[in-house]
């Protein structure tokens, strides 16, 4: 056991059992999986990406590149979880990754032997030839060996949520700077959200021995959080990572239930927070910078900051004999703390030739060996056994089982660069710092390069004050908090120059110094190119530990400064985010909300099958017992309409109430045909064009009174047409007095069609005379009442080609209307039908619909050119006269019939001259809609053909390479059924 006897912010009274790689272990509440593994002397936690080298735990935070484990099993299996971020819970089960058969012995580790061949660019160079092998052989093999972790195959059983929150001040990070900033702003009365990725806020205060205002760091953090939580305008979000800035919105993920075996009942697993602050303070701290030297990936090599956390916060030590290799004073402090905790500190190795006298003195007092001007040349052992140290006295080997390294501190400035800002290299701080963060953001604490605790706190107070004042609050001057902590001096140190062995720059993607050398040798100078050629920084850790070392080495090799070499672009997310959190409740069928028609439940009772048309669920067909397929059902429905009567809910059409003195003029401008002359009590079919001359939508508009009209649009374009009309009124013609209101939802509308339609309608109409042929002729509209006083609008319209009416009643009466029509039509065998029969009948009639109004057709293309007025101007008229749109050889609307009536025509079939090869050059057009006509007894289609109706009577080749089919068709009029329209007039 490597658990220290005393100390730590763990609860030793609450032991927890867990499993890793099949073995049982114990830890304590307050542990992470990483600290618990260290306590149990587990050294190898995973295998590396490319060379399958054994890897251990490198850090104690979200920057961890190595210790990626799979968590849980079954549907909750979760790959690539950082062991350093997993809070231990009882019964936790974790597995190592990328190793077969075991973490201890991995067959793919043979890749190390091949390393001289598989350096940077290997794949690009090797799998070029022969070309055919790429898909057959290379890609499957490469894909099989690529990646880390295996995604779960079962649906995620948990749910996720999205939340939107506004605040005055968002504080990112609850360390010393973040807490003081939040307290300053909150005490001034500001609405504050403070988010921290740890479950225990405090940041480094929980890991380092510092004093703030007379309290030790952890106590201060606890008290500060208690005060913040008590304030009504403050929201403290723990286990929450702010991972990106998108315009003015900050995105954060709260891991609500990740620390539990199963989320609490009714609680989400994770919440995505969209936070819109007026001001933001980035206080995300800084992380230890690793040093590149051979063997720097050996399990046992750890960042000094991580080691400090393990000793002080978790009371565990990754080794019994620890050496330090660091170029800054903070690491010396860690060495002293380790010695104080009873750990054998074998040596402190510092490349700096001189060190502050007080540190040297303390080392001496503690009896610690110090090697100045020295570097670790190599780490030995599959788990760390020894290090070779090169100093002024030559090279020596020191036996250790842990090595703490620190080449400096890397401020967590990623979020400050999400608006494409680039950091600058600050030689004094040895860090990349951001001078121009996104608007509204200030950077505080170590993230701004203030590594000493007093400077951290001062910057927190300063930024918190400014943010509160900017939001209109006044801040009382508070006494300066006295702080004490370790020295923050040091110099950045990146890389030990040596030719020995694997020296890793990027531990997650297995990029070595050699790979950078290859890239430089092959002419890559840009850091962006280096990244893509070597995969440097392309792991899930986004190169937090590797980018700086990589670019420092590139700078050195190319003879440039770090500033001149520059950084790659920082992009969200700061840490990995699950898709679940991004999706929230909108998954599966809840991808978008479902709209239900006024007769939905009535249709459901009748056993209707439904289809999605946009967000709507519409009845598709109403099968009866014994019917073998949808086609049989639909053909029955069509025959019923054609022979007697049928009904369909058409409430989904867009319906717009238009009132005011200028409606007629307005309609003349938006439709190709004239409406201002339409008499009261009549409806007219109209076609609307887009500005570019293409058809936008069609529908009927009726005039209910002198100054009130009602327009219908297609279901799919209901919203588009409304916003188009709004645009016309608000922007193009604000001088017109038209009052427009959507009434799509107000009215349930049922189309009643068939030779017996009038008889049925008269049975439910309160004034049957109002729907007589003479009183309500074709295209007539009337306002009346039905079913004993329910107001109704009745339009004599037909899409089916039969005598037809559309009856509208207030939506709450939609079901009642459907039931009344069924009862009234019982003696006539009235048949409810769905969208399939609707489509079959409109194709039989040659009416255009969605597939024809496809954004590529003009009013002439769809066969309605004669409708377009020559006497008035309307939207789209000018551009519809472009030469290409009036070309005689454009595709025109025709009907298509198979010569052999057994052939099935389908939408999408292409038309070619008889005997012509199926080439693009020979293509004459295509079938846009087709159906197995119940009325005609064979398949028919409508479509678009070069030359259009001029080709009627010709025979062509119908070619369907996708679904199979190659047969002869005859071009005919699209009006297959009752072309004169006699049946609607009866």
């Amino acid at each position, binding site marked *: 056991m490597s658990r220290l006897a005393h100390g730590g912010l763990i609860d030793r009274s609450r032991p927890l059992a867990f499993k890793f790689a099949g073995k049982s272990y114990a830890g304590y509440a307050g542990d992470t999986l990483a600290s618990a593994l260290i306590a149990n002397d587990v050294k190898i936690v995973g295998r590396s990406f490319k060379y399958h080298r054994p890897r251990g735990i490198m850090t104690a935070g979200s920057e961890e590149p190595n210790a990626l484990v799979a968590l849980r099993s079954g549907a909750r299996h979760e790959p690539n979880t950082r062991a350093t971020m997993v809070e231990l819970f009882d019964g936790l089960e974790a597995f190592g990754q990328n190793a077969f058969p075991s973490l201890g012995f991995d067959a793919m580790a043979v890749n190390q032997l091949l390393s001289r061949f598989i350096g940077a660019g290997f794949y690009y160079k090797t799998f070029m030839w022969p070309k055919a092998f790429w898909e057959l052989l290379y890609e499957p093999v490469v894909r099989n060996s690529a990646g880390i972790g295996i995604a779960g195959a079962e649906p995620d*059983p*948990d*749910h996720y*949520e*999205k*939340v*939107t*929150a*506004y605040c005055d001040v968002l504080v990112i990070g609850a360390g010393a700077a973040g807490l003081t900033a939040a307290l300053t702003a909150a005490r001034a009365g500001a*609405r504050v959200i403070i988010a921290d990725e740890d479950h225990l806020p405090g940041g480094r205060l929980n890991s380092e021995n510092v004093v703030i205002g007379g309290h030790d760091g952890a106590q201060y953090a606890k008290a500060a959080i208690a005060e913040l939580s008590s304030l009504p305008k403050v929201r403290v979000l723990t286990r929450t990572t702010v991972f990106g800035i998108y315009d003015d919105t900050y995105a954060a993920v709260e891991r609500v239930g990740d620390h539990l075996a199963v*989320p*609490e*009942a*009714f*609680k*989400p697993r994770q919440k995505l927070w*969209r936070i*819109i602050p007026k001001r933001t303070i980035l206080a995300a701290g800084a992380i230890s910078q690793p040093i590149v030297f051979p063997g720097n990936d050996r399990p046992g090599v750890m960042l000094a900051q991580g080691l400090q956390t393990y000793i002080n916060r978790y009371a565990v030590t990754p080794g019994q004999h620890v050496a330090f290799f660091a170029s800054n004073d903070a690491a010396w402090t860690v060495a002293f703390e380790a010695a104080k905790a009873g750990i054998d500190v074998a040596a402190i190795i510092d490349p700096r030739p001189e060190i502050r006298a007080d540190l040297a003195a303390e080392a001496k007092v503690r009896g610690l060996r110090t090697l100045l001007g020295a570097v670790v040349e190599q780490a030995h052992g599959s788990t760390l056994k020894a290090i070779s140290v090169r100093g002024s006295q030559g090279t020596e080997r020191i036996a250790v089982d842990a090595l703490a390294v620190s080449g400096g501190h890397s401020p967590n400035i990623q979020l400050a660069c999400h608006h494409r800002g680039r950091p600058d290299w600050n030689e004094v701080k040895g860090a990349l710092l951001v001078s121009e963060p996104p608007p509204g953001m200030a950077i505080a604490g170590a993230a701004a390069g203030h590594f000493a605790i007093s400077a951290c706190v001062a910057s927190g107070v300063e930024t918190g004050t400014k943010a509160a004042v900017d939001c209109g609050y006044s801040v009382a001057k508070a006494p300066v908090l006295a702080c004490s902590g370790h020295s923050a001096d040091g110099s950045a140190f990146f890389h030990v120059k040596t030719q020995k062995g694997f020296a890793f720059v990027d531990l997650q993607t297995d990029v070595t110094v050699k790979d950078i050398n290859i890239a430089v040798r092959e002419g890559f100078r840009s850091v962006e190119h280096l990244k893509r050629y070597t995969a440097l920084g392309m792991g899930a850790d986004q190169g937090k530990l590797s980018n700086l070392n990589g670019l420092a080495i590139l700078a050195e090799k190319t003879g440039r400064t770090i500033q001149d070499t520059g950084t790659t672009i920082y992009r969200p997310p700061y840490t990995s985010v699950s898709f679940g959190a991004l999706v*929230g*409740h*909108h998954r599966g*069928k*809840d991808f*978008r*909300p*479902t*709209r*239900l*028609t*006024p007769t*939905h439940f009535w249709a*459901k009772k009748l056993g209707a099958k*439904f289809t999605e048309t946009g967000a*709507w*669920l519409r009845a598709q067909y109403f099968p009866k017992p014994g019917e073998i397929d949808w086609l049989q059902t639909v053909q029955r429905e069509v025959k019923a309409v054609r022979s007697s009567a049928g009904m369909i809910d058409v409430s989904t059409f867009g319906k717009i*109430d238009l*009132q*005011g003195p*200028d409606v007629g003029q307005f309609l003349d401008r938006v439709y190709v045909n004239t409406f201002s002359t339409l008499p009261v009590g009549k409806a007219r079919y109209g076609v609307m064009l887009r500005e570019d001359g293409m058809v936008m939508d069609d529908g009927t508009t009726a005039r209910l009174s002198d100054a009130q009209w009602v327009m219908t649009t297609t279901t799919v374009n209901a919203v588009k047409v409304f916003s188009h009309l709004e645009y016309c009124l608000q922007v193009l013609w*604000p*001088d*017109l*007095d038209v*009052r*427009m*209101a*959507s*009434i*799509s*939802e*107000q*009215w*349930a509308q049922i189309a009643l069609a068939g030779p017996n339609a009038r008889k049925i309608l008269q049975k439910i109409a309160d004034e049957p005379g109002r729907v007589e042929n003479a009183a309500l002729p074709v295209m007539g509209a009337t306002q009346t009442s039905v079913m004993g006083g329910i107001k109704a609008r009745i339009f004599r319209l037909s899409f089916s080609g039969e005598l037809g009416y559309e009856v509208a009643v*207030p*939506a*709450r*009466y939609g079901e009642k209307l459907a039931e009344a029509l069924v009862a009234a039509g019982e003696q006539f065998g009235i048949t409810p039908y769905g969208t399939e029969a609707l489509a079959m009948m409109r194709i039989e009639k040659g009416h255009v619909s969605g597939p024809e109004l496809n954004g590529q057709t003009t009013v002439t293309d769809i066969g309605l050119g004669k409708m377009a007025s020559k006497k008035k101007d309307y939207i789209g008229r000018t551009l519809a006269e472009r030469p290409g749109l009036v070309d005689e050889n454009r595709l025109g609307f025709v009907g298509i019939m198979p010569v052999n009536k057994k052939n099935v025509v389908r939408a999408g079939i292409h038309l070619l001259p008889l005997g012509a090869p199926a080439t693009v050059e020979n293509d004459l057009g295509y079938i846009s809609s087709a159906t197995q006509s119940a009325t005609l007894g064979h398949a028919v289609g409508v479509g678009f053909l070069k030359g259009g109706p001029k080709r009627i009577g010709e025979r062509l080749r119908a070619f369907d390479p996708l679904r199979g089919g190659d047969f002869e068709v005859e071009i005919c009029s699209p009006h297959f059924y009752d072309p004169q329209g006699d049946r609607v007039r009866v």
Partner: protein
Amino acid sequence: MSDILANLQPDEPLEPGCYGREGVPGVTVKTVDLALASLIAGRNAVAPLSDAIKAGLGVPLPQGPQFAVAGGVALIGTGPGRWIVVAEEQSAKALLEHLETLAGSFGSATDQSDASILFEIAGPSVRDTLMKMLLIDIDPASFKPGSAATTQAALIGTTFWQIDDKPTYRFLVARSYAVAFVRALAVSAAEFGFELA
């Protein structure tokens, strides 16, 4: 299973009852059947229309996303020159006629009593629940009794307003989306306990 909708298809309405966390529900919802109408000003007629409404009802039309209550009706601004009017006691027909009389030539009214379902949502966790559905700020600092908004909730278009400090909100949701709205509300409120009246 924590998802109360796991076995409920999107076209199956949630039955009245209590869902989610047990105990006092954090969110309660009921529907209120009131007469509704849209009122739209004619060209350059916002001011005279407002004057006419003030003369008849005692309050002018709110200019902006707010609401005003007078004479048994609530007037909610939904856009420039556009309002939704909710009548506490009048029938749909009476409301329409009343508005048409008041508006005269300055505006037009349209019956919307069947177009929307009016939900009244309250309870101690109502704000935390609505934060999951809305993209706008409903903190008391920016949204209070008298405030209204026309926006979307869980991808569903809505006009809503706050009627008291408890707080209680009224949401107008298109009839076709009512089942989907309750679905989104229930799953968002589940962690606090949800009661559908």
